[in-house]
């Protein structure tokens, strides 16, 4: 028992959580007692005796679980326990529930955890659509409805789309650049373990007096500064998810910049690596803004600062400026890694070099730069200075240009290729081009101020964001999961079930989200538990589409679980791809490479005679002719 308490792990973690929470609680009680205040403050925004333990409890868990052991020992001068690599790899499923610094284990932890939240958030979407299937109130009351769509959005954004990309990249990116691991493995593990804590805080808010946060994922002040306790759970959950995200982005940046295999110049990096480089640049600079603004809301609520309280000299609209300064770049944080996945999948399955590789990489950087200058297009009707609208409109529309470059270059990649569509990954990649084009087009329309004035905060917006986030990001996530499933699990998935999942998801996406454009333009506002009867027929159709969509995800789940356990063994390189992760076994060896590979050419040299991307350990080392990308002039 004593040994179990000394050993990092679940028992010490639980103890840490209890001690941390108790410390926070005692601190509040003692300070309030000493100040002569009533011990418990239970105005709806207050509850310091709950809010403070919500910070100290999770931190206590992380400390107990072992996330800080090495650093703490070093900091207090104790002998550190040298990494003997015995923790690397996972021998049984139990190893995935430990503090593990192996990037491949962490990648799987990320992916499985985020898909858990995908299904929880999806279940909430099903409840939402069940309520909206008919006008009137049938299943949940208006307040619960508001909590449901708020939690749905927050889980899907902070616990699924953003971190699942981090998970996929965690697994494949070090392999792709020929690195043995990430640059900071302990930080990497800490990043992961903060994530479920954020999820628990978001879901735990349903237990708070007054119910879960119900102000939308945007949490606009002053609705949020006056909302019940659940809002504080949101404010704090965002801190854990944000810290996780920032730490991971730093880790990716350092890994990509310093740990590429010899010979891998920037212009030889696969586009997935470029995409994660760009995404990480966005995360490190933008995410602190949402962390900051949620702290400001929390302080307004709990300690009486008046950042957003106009009666106290605060400024209501400034919340939206700070929030969107993160949250617009965030949509690219949720899209750029997907762009990288699509480039890998399309090039591999079309057996063609990426068309215009350098312009593809530069387009990513262009999106990063432009995305910092478009945030106020979310605020055209918000009452901000009206002169800011036109410049924001122009930058918003211009961001369609680098995005268009990506679409056309993927199409160009298909030409004169040998397109194989047997893989579900390729099907999702091709469908992504279609649905994302639609989402992009509605985005351009929304960027135009006069149109936006009419459709802002209507179902048109709901349609647009689901076309880019579901038809866009989630399709790329599925493409990525199917593409690297053999590499990650060492098993093949069932292509037949994959096709069922694909076609069901494609049809479900269109049936669900296309009619939303129509009802929105015709006058149905978003975020309403009830609506005018004239929209009833479209809404029942939308709900049917949503249920189809939900059901198909169960097919996916079944396919993944059963194939992981019983699927046929995968060979090292089932898609005959060039990049380095496919040149090692499936799953890769515990330390990735017996010897760091040497990179001698671009990653997409399909069809170039004698071209090589990398020379692996033990391969004959006669240097093949270095290939230069040839740019064919138009004929």
């Amino acid at each position, binding site marked *: 028992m004593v040994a179990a308490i000394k050993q990092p792990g679940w028992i010490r973690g639980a103890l840490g959580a209890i001690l941390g929470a108790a410390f926070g609680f005692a601190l509040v009680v003692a300070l309030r007692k000493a100040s002569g205040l009533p011990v418990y403050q239970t105005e709806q925004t207050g509850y310091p005796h709950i809010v403070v333990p919500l910070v100290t409890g999770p931190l206590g868990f992380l400390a107990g679980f072992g996330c800080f052991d090495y650093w703490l020992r070093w900091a207090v001068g104790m002998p550190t326990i040298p990494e003997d690599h015995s923790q690397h790899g996972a021998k049984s499923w139990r190893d995935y529930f430990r503090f593990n610094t192996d990037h491949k284990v962490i990648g799987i932890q990320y992916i499985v955890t985020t898909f858990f939240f995908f299904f929880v958030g999806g279940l909430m979407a099903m409840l939402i659509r069940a309520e909206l299937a008919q006008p009137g109130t049938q299943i949940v009351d208006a307040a619960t409805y508001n909590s449901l769509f708020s939690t749905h959005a927050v889980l899907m954004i902070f616990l699924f789309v953003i971190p699942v990309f981090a998970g996929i990249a965690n697994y494949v990116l070090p392999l792709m650049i020929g690195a043995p691991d990430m640059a900071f493995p302990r930080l990497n593990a800490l990043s992961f373990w903060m994530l479920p804590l954020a999820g628990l805080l978001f879901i735990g808010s349903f237990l708070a007096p007054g119910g879960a946060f119900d102000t939308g994922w945007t949490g606009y002040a002053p609705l949020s500064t006056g909302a019940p306790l659940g809002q504080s759970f949101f404010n704090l959950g965002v801190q854990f998810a944000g810290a996780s995200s920032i730490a991971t982005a730093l880790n990716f940046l350092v890994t990509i910049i310093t740990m590429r295999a010899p010979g891998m110049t920037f212009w030889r990096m696969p586009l997935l690596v470029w995409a994660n480089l760009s995404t990480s640049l966005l995360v490190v600079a933008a995410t602190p803004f949402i962390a900051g603004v949620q702290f400001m809301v929390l302080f307004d609520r709990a300690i009486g600062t008046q950042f957003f309280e106009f009666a106290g000299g605060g400024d209501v609209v400034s919340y939206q400026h700070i929030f969107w300064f993160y949250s617009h770049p965030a949509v690219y944080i949720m899209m750029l890694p997907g762009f990288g996945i699509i480039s890998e999948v399309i090039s591999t399955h079309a*057996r063609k070099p990426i068309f215009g590789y350098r312009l593809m990489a530069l387009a990513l950087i262009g999106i990063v730069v432009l995305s910092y200058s478009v945030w106020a297009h979310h605020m055209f009707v918000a009452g901000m200075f009206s002169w800011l609208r036109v410049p924001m409109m122009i930058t918003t529309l211009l961001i369609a240009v680098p995005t268009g470059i990506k679409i056309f270059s993927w199409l160009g990649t298909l030409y004169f290729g040998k397109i194989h569509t047997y893989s579900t990954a390729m099907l999702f990649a091709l469908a992504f081009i279609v649905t994302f084009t639609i989402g992009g087009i509605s985005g351009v329309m929304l960027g135009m101020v006069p149109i936006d004035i009419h459709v802002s905060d209507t179902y048109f917006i709901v349609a647009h964001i689901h076309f880019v986030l579901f038809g866009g990001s989630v399709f790329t996530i599925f493409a990525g999961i199917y593409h690297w499933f053999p590499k990650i699990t060492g098993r093949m998935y069932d292509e037949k079930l994959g096709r069922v999942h694909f076609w069901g998801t494609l049809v479900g996406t269109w049936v669900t989200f296309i009619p939303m454009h129509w009802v929105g333009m015709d006058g149905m506002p978003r975020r309403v538990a009830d609506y005018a009867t004239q929209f009833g027929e479209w809404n029942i159709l939308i709900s049917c589409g949503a249920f189809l969509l939900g059901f198909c995800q169960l097919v996916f789940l079944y396919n993944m679980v059963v194939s992981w356990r019983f699927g046929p063994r995968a060979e090292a390189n089932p898609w005959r791809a060039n990049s380095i992760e496919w040149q090692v076994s499936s799953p890769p060896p515990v330390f990735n490479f017996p010897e760091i590979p040497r990179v001698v050419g671009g990653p997409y040299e399909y069809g170039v005679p004698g071209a090589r991307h990398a020379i692996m350990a033990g391969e004959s080392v006669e240097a093949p002719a270095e290939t230069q990308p040839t740019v064919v002039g138009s004929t």
Partner: protein
Amino acid sequence: MMGRLPIAKMLAATVAMTVVISAVMVPINWNGQGASTAAPKIDQLLSVMIVLSAFVFSLVMVMLFYALWKFKAKPGDESDGEPIHGNTRLEVAWTVIPTIIVLFGAGYSWSVLNEIEEESEKPPLTVQVFSQQFAWSFGYPGKGGAWSEGELHVPLDRQVHFKMHAQDVIHSFWVPEWRMKKDNVPGITTTAIVTPDKLGTYQLICTELCGFGHAAMRATVVVETSADFRKWVAGLKETVPAALMESVVQDTETNPVPLGAGGA
């Protein structure tokens, strides 16, 4: 390389698809009935955008499906495609042409925005809009501020400046038939300019999430002749309550002129 593609046929297919999509989509009245001078201008902008979008969408579809039809690998073919890495002219084209299209869209939108927000020469009618969880009320000029709850009346064919004041959280003022929406923000006065040009009864919808009663936060809007409007206002018994009047005085006007020049 491009010489080996049926460029003319592909373009023709794109144009044909654009025409078909536009012919189906442009006549549909997506935004519903229009009842302000701004509505036809915004609807026309939408129609132009539908045609341009149909072209872009058709181009992508034709390029995608031609490639899938023409370059699909035969079963058992394990060879690679041709090692084509790019084409500078094409890449320049698909950078420059979309830039021109979106800049045209931006310029057009800008001019529409200026038109719909232009102040009329006739003195406008100023109506105060008060929003609170979960109800609307309205103050009219003259006679110490006549006040109506849940029902807004405005005269036909006269520009109305709505001065909006939120009492608690953010609400948003939307009359779909007017194509006009503006947030009501605590602490500041926001303005919306509308010239109603059709008689009728419409609905005012709150479009900013404001709490559990958000979905039910509606008001009736009546557009009537100026004679009827004057009569209706004269018949109002109540005047704007002092608490609401305070927000009119206290709220700061938005849209200050930036840097001493130009703003609207």
